[in-house]
Structure formats: C-alpha cells, structure tokens
C-alpha cells in the first residue's frame, strides 16, 4: 500500500471514531444487574452490551447509506440516528416495565433535582435502593451516548471501506475497534453510571487517553489491510 497524506487522514478518522465511542459509553445510563432488580437508576444491562447494541445498529444504517452515497456527513448522521432510534426504543420500552410492571416512579439518587425537568428526586427513591427507572436526564444522556456511539462506529467504518472496498471486512474491523473502545471505557466506569450528571462522569479523561492509545494502534493495524477476505 502507499503511505501518503490520505492514510494519515484515515488514521485520524479512526482515532476520532474510537474516541467518540469511548466517551459516548460514559453518557449511557447503565445500572447493570442492580437496575434489572430496580435497585439502581438506568438501563438494566451492562455498559458494553448496550453501547454495542446501539452503536452497531448505527453501523448497519451507516453501511446501507455508504453503499449508495459517498457524502461523509450523510453517512455519519445516518449512523448516529440509527443508534439513537435503537437506544430510544430500548429505554422507552424499559420505562413501560418500570412504570407498569414494577410500579415504581422514576428517580435518580445522584442528584436532588433533575437538571432538565426540575423534578425533585430524593422523595421518590425507594428505601434500600439508589433510585430506579429512567428519569428524563438519564434518557437524554443515553440518547447522546448512543448517538455518539453510532457516529463513532460510522466514522471507523467510513475510512476502512475507502481503503479496502470490502463491506464485510470493514464491518468486522469496525465492530472490533468499537468493542475495544467500549470495553476500555466500561473499565473506567466500573459497573454503573447514570449519565453526564453522575459524579463518575468526571473520570472521562482517563478513558480518553486509554482509548486514544488503543485506537491509534488499531488504526495503524487496520489501514495496512487493503484487501483479502
């Protein structure tokens, strides 16, 4: 392959994509196993799993768009919106269960007032728990995180497809780079986070640095592969 100015641009695009995924994971309100028992606010699953589910749905949308156009803005926006639809539908149907099956009002134990709606939170936190359900602040934060994941996935896929012209190979590499960055970010989160209002969110610079190093290494490896499969 020729190592020219375009290659550096491709590497930078993969780097930015990886960083978007790594930071986006911090926005997704994941309560882990406690949230599945309505013991913690947020979505009742693991960080990587939800980020991968939404971000890769965005990758599907971006891949479809890339097969018909080469306008990068449309491809990136399509990835972000596809991921946003997936995570929005997930949180919405999760809210049905919290409201109509568990029968609990939504509350976060990390803030006294929801910064968006202004609703007071502590009176609605059940005894022995740290909140439950998906309050508006968590919902909005989750949408931002999911859409950043979709944007990042599309941003990784775009240069890879331009290099090797093979949709399947690029998609597998994008899934791999996506998962590496999501896992690094979830180590930084240590299990649960409620979104950008959570005190844990302030730790994002650590993940930023780690994801930058990992993404650079992965980008260097992936731009060298120009065909095959």
């Amino acid at each position, binding site marked *: 392959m020729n190592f020219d100015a375009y290659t550096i641009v491709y590497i930078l695009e993969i780097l930015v994509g990886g960083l978007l995924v790594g930071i986006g994971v911090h926005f997704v309100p994941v309560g882990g196993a406690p949230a599945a028992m309505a013991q913690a606010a947020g979505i009742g*699953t693991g960080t990587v799993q939800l980020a991968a589910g939404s971000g890769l749905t965005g990758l599907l949308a971006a*891949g479809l768009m890339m097969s018909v156009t080469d306008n990068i803005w449309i491809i990136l926006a399509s990835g972000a919106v596809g991921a946003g639809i997936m995570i929005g539908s997930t949180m919405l149907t999760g809210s*049905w269960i919290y409201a109509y099956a568990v029968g609990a009002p939504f509350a976060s134990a990390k803030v006294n007032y929801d910064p968006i709606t202004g609703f007071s939170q502590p009176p609605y936190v059940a005894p022995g728990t740290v909140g439950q359900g998906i309050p508006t602040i968590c919902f909005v934060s989750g949408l931002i995180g999911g859409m950043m994941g979709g944007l990042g996935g599309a941003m990784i896929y775009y240069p890879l497809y331009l290099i090797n012209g093979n949709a399947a190979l690029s998609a597998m590499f994008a899934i791999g780079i996506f998962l590496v960055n999501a896992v690094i970010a979830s180590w930084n989160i240590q299990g649960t986070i409620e979104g950008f209002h959570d005190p844990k969110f302030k730790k994002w610079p650590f993940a930023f640095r780690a994801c930058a190093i990992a993404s650079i290494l992965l980008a260097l490896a992936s731009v060298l592969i120009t065909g095959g499969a």
Partner: protein
Amino acid sequence: MDAFSMGLVAAMGALATVAGASEDIESDVGSQSNPNSQVQLAAQVGNPHRIYNKAISGEPPANALWCATAAMVAYTLITAFQMPALMALVAGASVAALFNGVFSMSAYFGRNSSQARFNQWVYLDIVRYTTPSIMAHAWITSFCIATISYIMVYMLPTPHPFPMPIIALIWGLAVGAIGSSVGDIHYGGEREFQNRQFGCGLNTMLSGQIVRKAEAGLRNSIDNAWFCTKFGGPATGMGFGLTVFLDNWRTTVFDPVTQASYAILMGVFFIIVEVAYNFYIERSARRKYGAYPEYKGDIAA
C-alpha cells in the same frame, strides 16, 4: 417506495417483534443475564431452588452467536447448495438451537454442581423438560433474525452491503441488549421477588431471597416463563420491533439516494417523540404513585 417493499418492511417489523418476545422468554426460562445473579446468590444465602441456571454469557453475545450461526448455515446452504431460502433458514435455526441446548445443559450442570456445598442439587427432571423449551425459544429467535437478514440482503430494493451473517450478528447483539434491558426487569424486578412490598425496587437487604414456591408446589422456570410472557416478553418484542421497523421504514419510504436528508430528519423526529413519551410516563408515574412514605427529608445520596 412501492407496496412490495413496504410489505417487506412490515414483515421485518413483525418478525422482529416475535424475535424480541421469544428472546426474552428464552432468557427467562433459562434464567440468563442480570436477574440470574439473584438465582446464583439464592443458594449461597441458604435458599436452594429448582430454577434453571444458565448464564452462558451476557445475552447480547449469546444471541449474537445463535443468530450468526443460523445465518451462516443458511447462507452456506443457499449459496453453495442452492437450497430454497425457507428450508435453509429452518436448517440454520435448528443448528443454532442445538448449539444453544449444548451450552444450556453444560451451564446448568456446571453451575449447580459447583454449588453442592450450599445444598443445591442438580435436578435431572428440570434439565429434561426445561432444556427443550429453551431450545425452542432460541430456534424462534434465530429463525426470525436470520430471516430479517435474508430480507435485508436479498429482497429489499436497496440491498444491504453487509453479508447475512454479519447483519444477523449485529441484530443478535441488538436483540440481546434490548432483552436484557427491557424484559429482564419484569423477571428480576417483579417475578423473582413477589414476596416483598409491591411498587418499589428490590431492597438491598433482600438480595438472594427469591420466591421458591409456586401457585402449586415448588416454582420452576416454566412458571417464570408463564408470568413473563404476559408483559416482559411482548414489551421486549415492541422494543426490538420498533428498532427494526422505524430504522428500515425511513430508508424505504425515503429513497436513500435522492432523499437521504429526509430519512435522517425522520429518524430525528422519531427520537424526539420517544423523549416526549418517556417524559409523559415519568410524570404520570410520579403523579399516580407519589413519594415513598418512608422519606424523612433530604438525605445524602
């Protein structure tokens, strides 16, 4: 857009709804994912039980494996052996269900025999009549998702560039993520702990105190599936159905070549509607249920 492709998108939405529902019931019959932490804990805090215990992995990677296996077998049969698509998809789903059965049984034997010191038994009758039910649900999930991938690659007017197994892998990850975020709350937040006060999350003090008695006799995982089919499963199906339908509807109604920006704006519109609907649910739940009576003024969070 023509009527045929709109019908295909509708069929994909219906298949996705069925796949989501059966995925959640599969994880409830087998007790997988997050609520299984309580099933696992129960024996250790002195509550041996007759609930199936198969946490093979998180739901998303597990379902990605079943669906990618089904799609890969179907893709091979279609391309290399020119088999009719429907039969190939059925064969693929059957292989995936066999994989699922092997993993489920080894997980059940391994997990329960490792808890022998807590007086937890390995019940062979549970293995005999619960495993086929788990496999059947895995069959439905992987068949539906492999069919969705087939439609996306071979039948839609704008065929997807990814090959079938990768699309099935991604949809399998997505259906697992939705099942573990939506349906599991009904199983973990409600069904496992019906012995405590209704209308609140699980108090940390009650961890591991799962319900072990059924309406008649001892509770097993088939009873749990019966309960979760009433709401958790269909809600998961709605979540996944909405994802697949809305995502494909906007690129089918608006031609991605000439009207891509309309397709994106339509997606943004769907997202705004979802935010508004969630806000409505939050507000009505707060108004109807009210604050907890135990609340005694502001406490440190």
